[in-house]
């Protein structure tokens, strides 16, 4: 279990983290969300000791995190980077050995992950010779090969094609099922909703919403209302109902006790209703609400 408690860090006048905290339980996948500059990367760097926070604690299974613990963590930084001129297999073995694997263990692990990620025949080539998507996979392999107990991935899905996205999602689910604790950040909220069980939403250095995704949805006092009238999205205007509409949305958010019958009647009065869905909010809706946009 990874736990960040009340972590604060400022760079000059900029507050990067302002008492941020969240918990990831073992074997679960947490989507770490937030707008650009909210503090996601800083929080991840704090876990790896790359940034020393001014206050707050990071614990792993209840104990402090030191160099020995970190060797059991895998990290895929936001800033991608491997050695461009070094052979892919060689550098993955190098990084795995730095994480404490023996030469034989490292070789086996690298072979395994290159196979899983579809790079089995690319290990002997230089990183430079790989396509962008394959470099991304090699980067992931560097995080996975040491067989970590905790995996922290900064934007792992960015730059992957839809098939790559699906296979990475599947890989993460399998790892979590095998007991690996996973934290990943992403701006693709539908994807996060699909892959992770828990979320933590950070805004301006503070975690504004966190917990199990199902619980959050169920406890939400909001509902997503999608109405199509005459084949077009339709937004109701019913007295006593507060309707939240964001730019570019074809649905609206209403309170969970909104008068559904009145809303449907209003839609019927406007034309032929093709669709009327009243459902728990999606992650996108929760995110919009949490970061206040």
């Amino acid at each position: 279990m990874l736990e960040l408690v009340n972590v604060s860090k400022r760079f000059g006048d900029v507050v990067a983290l302002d008492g941020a905290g969240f918990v990831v339980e073992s074997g679960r996948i947490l989507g770490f969300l937030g707008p650009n500059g909210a503090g996601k990367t800083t929080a991840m760097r704090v876990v790896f000791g790359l940034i020393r926070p001014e206050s707050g604690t990071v614990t792993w299974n209840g104990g402090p995190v030191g160099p020995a613990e970190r060797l059991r963590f895998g990290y895929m930084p936001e800033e991608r980077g491997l050695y461009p001129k070094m052979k892919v297999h060689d550098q993955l073995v190098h990084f795995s050995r730095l994480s404490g694997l023996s030469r034989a263990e490292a070789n086996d692990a690298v072979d395994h992950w290159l196979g899983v990620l579809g790079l089995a025949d690319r290990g002997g080539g230089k990183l430079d010779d790989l396509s962008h998507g394959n470099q991304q996979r090699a980067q992931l392999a560097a995080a996975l090969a040491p067989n970590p107990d905790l995996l922290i991935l900064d934007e792992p899905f960015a730059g992957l094609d839809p098939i790559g996205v699906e296979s990475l999602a599947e890989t993460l689910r399998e790892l979590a099922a095998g007991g690996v604790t996973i934290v990943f950040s992403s701006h693709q909220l539908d994807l996060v909703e699909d892959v992770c069980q828990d979320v933590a939403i950070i805004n301006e250095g503070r975690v504004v919403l966190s917990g199990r995704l199902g619980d959050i949805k169920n406890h939400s006092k909001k509902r997503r209302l999608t109405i199509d009238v005459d084949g077009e999205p339709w937004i109701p205007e019913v007295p006593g109902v507060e309707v939240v509409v964001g730019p570019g949305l074809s649905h609206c958010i209403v309170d969970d006790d909104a008068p559904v019958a009145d809303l449907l009647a209003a839609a019927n009065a406007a034309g032929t209703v093709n669709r009327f869905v009243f459902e728990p909010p999606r992650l996108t809706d929760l995110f919009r609400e949490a970061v206040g946009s």
Partner: protein
Amino acid sequence: MKPWRQVGLLAKREFLERARSKPFIITMTLLAVAILAIGPAVNLLSGGEGKATKIGLIGMEPPGIEQELHAQAVLFDMVIEVDRFPTRSGAENALAEGEVAVVLVDGSEIVFHTESSSQLTALIHGAVDTTVKTEALSELGLSEGEIAAVVEPIPMEVTALEEQNVQDEAKRGAAFAGAILLYISIIMFGQFVAMGTVEEKQNRVVEVILSRVRPWQILVGKVVGIGVLGLLQLAIFAGAAYISAQLADLPDIDVAAIGLPIIASVFFWFILGYTFYAFLYAAVGSTVSRQEDLQGAIMIPIVLIMPGYLLAIFAAENPEAVLPTVASWLPPWAPFVMPVRMAAGVAQPWEIAVAIVGTVLGAIALVWIGARVYSGALLRTGGKVKLREAWRAAAE
């Protein structure tokens, strides 16, 4: 996982990746071959000493002149050959072509091509003088023994109060070559350290490494790995130079007695000097994020190294001058100047001790300062990080 085990892995990667790189192998091989070729090349150019000097003869010859020329040559410690020419123009052509060094015309005129040699003039003059006098004396009816007693040169003992010591000359030359090798090696491998640091920052791999090890481990691994490569190259160059000197025709010089101590001294001072400068190179390298910005940053070590190199060259000729003497005590310059003064035999033991202790302390201070700047600057990408900012950032 012991921290030093990780340092070892980092050092090994630095060493292997560079040692395997084609440009490095090609450059090193070419340079080693060039050094090897110097010895034989010098032999070719000097045309081989002890080779016979040719003397041309035309026209009337004093009787027995050839035999007397050979006899005189022995006195001058020379070997000569005599060539006869039918015409003066033929002899002059041979002079111009360098086929003969000098021509004796009618036993009374000595012709050189451009520069006259007083040694050859004296030799020919002596031979002509002896033959002419021998003939005159024999006409007077003196016996051969009597003639010999008159014309035989009076033996003179020649002594020099101070013998020009070829060994010392050679030693100085070797020390000079060692200083250049040291300078090139420290600049080259220091630059490798700086470039490697920037490279890791530029392609962001540093964050992947830093998630596994501490900054000081990366720094030490890099300096050690590249340093071992430097020692390897030094060994190859020094070996090539040593073989080259053996191949050169240097009968008066004991190559082993001069070469081996100089090589040992270059190794020793490389380890000290490289350690001192490598951490400085790493620190300044860590403050920039792109190779393009590196040239400006490494001016700091270059500006420190240059005076040391120039003073080492100066010290080769003037090992006891004030400036090189003082410089040889001080850490930034001792690694360049002290080995030259040691080779010249003018450095006192206490001076050597001061230089070594000073450089070691300086290197320790730079390891500490360099590691701190490096830690503070590693994850700062974008522009150039000021040294002071990096220093402060490391404390955060």
